């Protein structure tokens, strides 16, 4: 499923113009056009869709009420959870074994 421009830039839907611009610059730094052309294009398209405030509001008004409900799970944002040091240590071992 295609990501919304907010998801591409990693900002909330109520992000301000400054926040959107900052996120765009951050993403461009991470995906420069010469080394990551596909990602860069995606980031640029997302920014183009949000930089103009009118276009952004129109995008904000887009929603499909008939979208299948399980899509809620696949598009839900991942959270970041503290799990303590042990799983990390275990992952080092798993990673080394996989090498």
């Amino acid at each position, binding site marked *: 499923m295609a990501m919304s421009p907010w998801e591409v830039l990693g900002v909330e839907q109520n992000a301000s113009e400054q926040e959107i611009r900052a996120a765009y610059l951050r993403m461009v730094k991470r995906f420069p056009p010469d080394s990551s052309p596909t990602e860069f294009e995606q980031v640029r398209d997302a920014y183009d869709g949000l930089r103009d405030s009118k276009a952004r509001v129109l995008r904000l008004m887009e929603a499909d009420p008939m979208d299948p*409900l399980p899509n809620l799970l696949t598009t839900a944002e991942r959270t970041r*959870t503290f799990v303590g040091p*042990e799983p990390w240590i275990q992952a080092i*071992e*798993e990673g*080394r074994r996989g090498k």
Partner: protein
Amino acid sequence: MIPEKAIEKVQEALARRDYRSAVDQAKELHRNWGTESTERLLVQAYGERIRDLRVRGLTQEADTLRELVRNRYPGSAFRLDASPPKVLGWAAVLADPGLSAEDRDRIHGRIVSEVTDPRALAAVLPEGHPLRQVAESVWSAFERATSQRTEDSDVLLPDISRRSPFAPWKSLIRAISAFYRKDDETAAQHLAAIPANAAVEPLAAVLSSTMKDDEPGPKGRTLSLRNLISPRPGSENLASLLKSVDKALREDAESKLMKAVAAAVKECEISAPTLLERLRAHILAKTTVRPVDTRNLMRAMGVTDLIPNAYLTRLTARAAELIQHHERAAREWQRFRKAAVAEGWIKPGREEAVILIHAATVQARMFEDYAQDAHGVFGAACELDPSAGNFSAWVKALSERFPKAAEEAATEWRRVRPTDIEPVLFRLQQFETRNALQKAEKELATAEALAPMNPGVRNARLRLLIKILHRHLNTRNRRLADRDLADFEAATQFRMADLPALLPALTHEVRLVFDGSVDAREPRGQIAALLGEPAAALLLYAVGTVFRPASHLPPPDTFPPEQRQRIPEAMIRVYLIMRAISAVLPVPEPWAKELSGILRSGALRDAMQLRQLGELALRGAQPELTYAISAAGLALGGPTEGRFLYLRSRAVPPHQQHRRACVVAASLSLARQVQDAETINDCLRMSEGSFGTRQLSQALFDIVRKQEREATQYPNSRQTGPDYRKHDPSWSDFRSFDSSSGAGRPDQAFAALLEELAEALESGEPPEEFTRRVFGRGGGRGRRR
């Protein structure tokens, strides 16, 4: 006090490499005493047993046992991996002051690439050893960064230099800290400093893939950690329950739906509490489309009501639009606007105006009293943001049904933005419609002063000159009519393309009105010199239909064969002339038949010509001819296929709603592929007016293209043409939108009929012809009136 003898027995068993009994005895000891030291001893015994299993090649058993011990004794698990003799050996060597720089670097290198747990190293080094202190501080920072939010200053580890063997650990810890602060850029910078051979490199890979939300390295290797540190809410059970809700909604089974909703909400509370509010919003929006008892639904969702926040109101507004419940949609958009401003989604003012304009546009589609309220909403939006786009939306939304209100809007537009040409053109058109030609001339003068080269203004001059001439012919004022002809001759607009051919035709009309029967050979000859013979006859006929009820056109068989072949070209040229003066060219039956014959013979294969002929037939409200042209165009394939599918959708009888919707959707997809803006706009306008924009599956898209190409015959009672309902799984949705909403299917068909009728009246199609065409009576087997 733990009996030392028991401890010795365990150590003895280990010394004689009887690891099984060492583990058994250590287990017994730990069961009885359960202290930290008995746990350490037990894990040590397990560690030796695991190593022994590996030596014997029982790797799988060793791994299983290792995981078991790790899970059961997570606090001591690191001891399983410690390799005391080696580490001690390194540490001892590092303590040697005579160690060469080269050896020191080599040992540091091994620590970088082999130490997977700083505790293991610290545990085997003597108290006060500098490396032990570093290992302990690394572990402490690692524990903090993985257990709670830390700032960068909390995990600086200033004692660890870039050359320290723990430098990769330092980078990792600072990256983890930044990751949890959602400062991915800083995290990525720290991760970049970790060398590929470092023991902690697998964690760098996990973090990196988690931040990018892409697939991690080899499957399963680091997925478990990623899912732990960055889980997606929900569970497989929840996904399946959500599918059940969708299924119950499709089946229209209310009691089944309530049970499914209650189960899904309950599971969501447990496995994805952060999604609960959104889930309720989506369910409520879906039941807007397929209504259910709201009280029961709320009970099933475990609430009495939902807060009308921006997320919910956006969905319900869209759902109301989907079922064409305009009043509700307008109301919901207003609620969305308020909520969106309050929740910081949008800023008050200009951004708010975007929603107001949309709400007012929806409201303008309602019944009269309510629709007129939209006038005020548009006014409020234009006050917030007086942009040309907003004024244009205001005028456009009201122009069809409320011309007076639209004129007021245009006047307001002109007042606020005096240099815009659009409101002047709109007012000019309104005056023309009302036949207020003097006012129209005055407005045109303003338009010409503002934007003399604007095509709309130039066309308006032509249109107005024709209307004025028409009036003077009706009032039988020859002096003014002659002056009008002189104006035509002087107007620069008439010197472009084929337009000079219009003057002899108009002069002929003036003579005909004032002098009675006149010889048409002279003007026809003049026009033929410019456009060719069949076009001359057609132009005289077409201009005649503008001024008189009856006009004569010689049948095609009166032309010699070489001229007959030029009939399609003549039609296009005359059509373009008539379009320039905003007049319609209705192709009379014999000429339409002639064109159909040429199309059937396959002699006309120029897509551009076919496209223009299609516009001609469409403008003349001649669906059978439009259909035949679309068939010839579809046979060509290529980049214009989308346009010919659009023509086909316009030609299909209005009662074939589903076919029309599918054809428009296919046309839209193809037009988007070739960026045909005109067709995209036409398709969207058509969809918005009746059945909404649909998305076809690839399979259905292919079927529509194939079957429409094959369907060359205009539908009649015997041959109705393709029917896509059996190929379209969402057909039930399409049908239920029609029947379950306030705007039911009969209304929708009625709206389509009205639209068709308006076009027919505009084009001058006789009512009986319209009835025959739309309802298919007679089916080509003769007329019944």
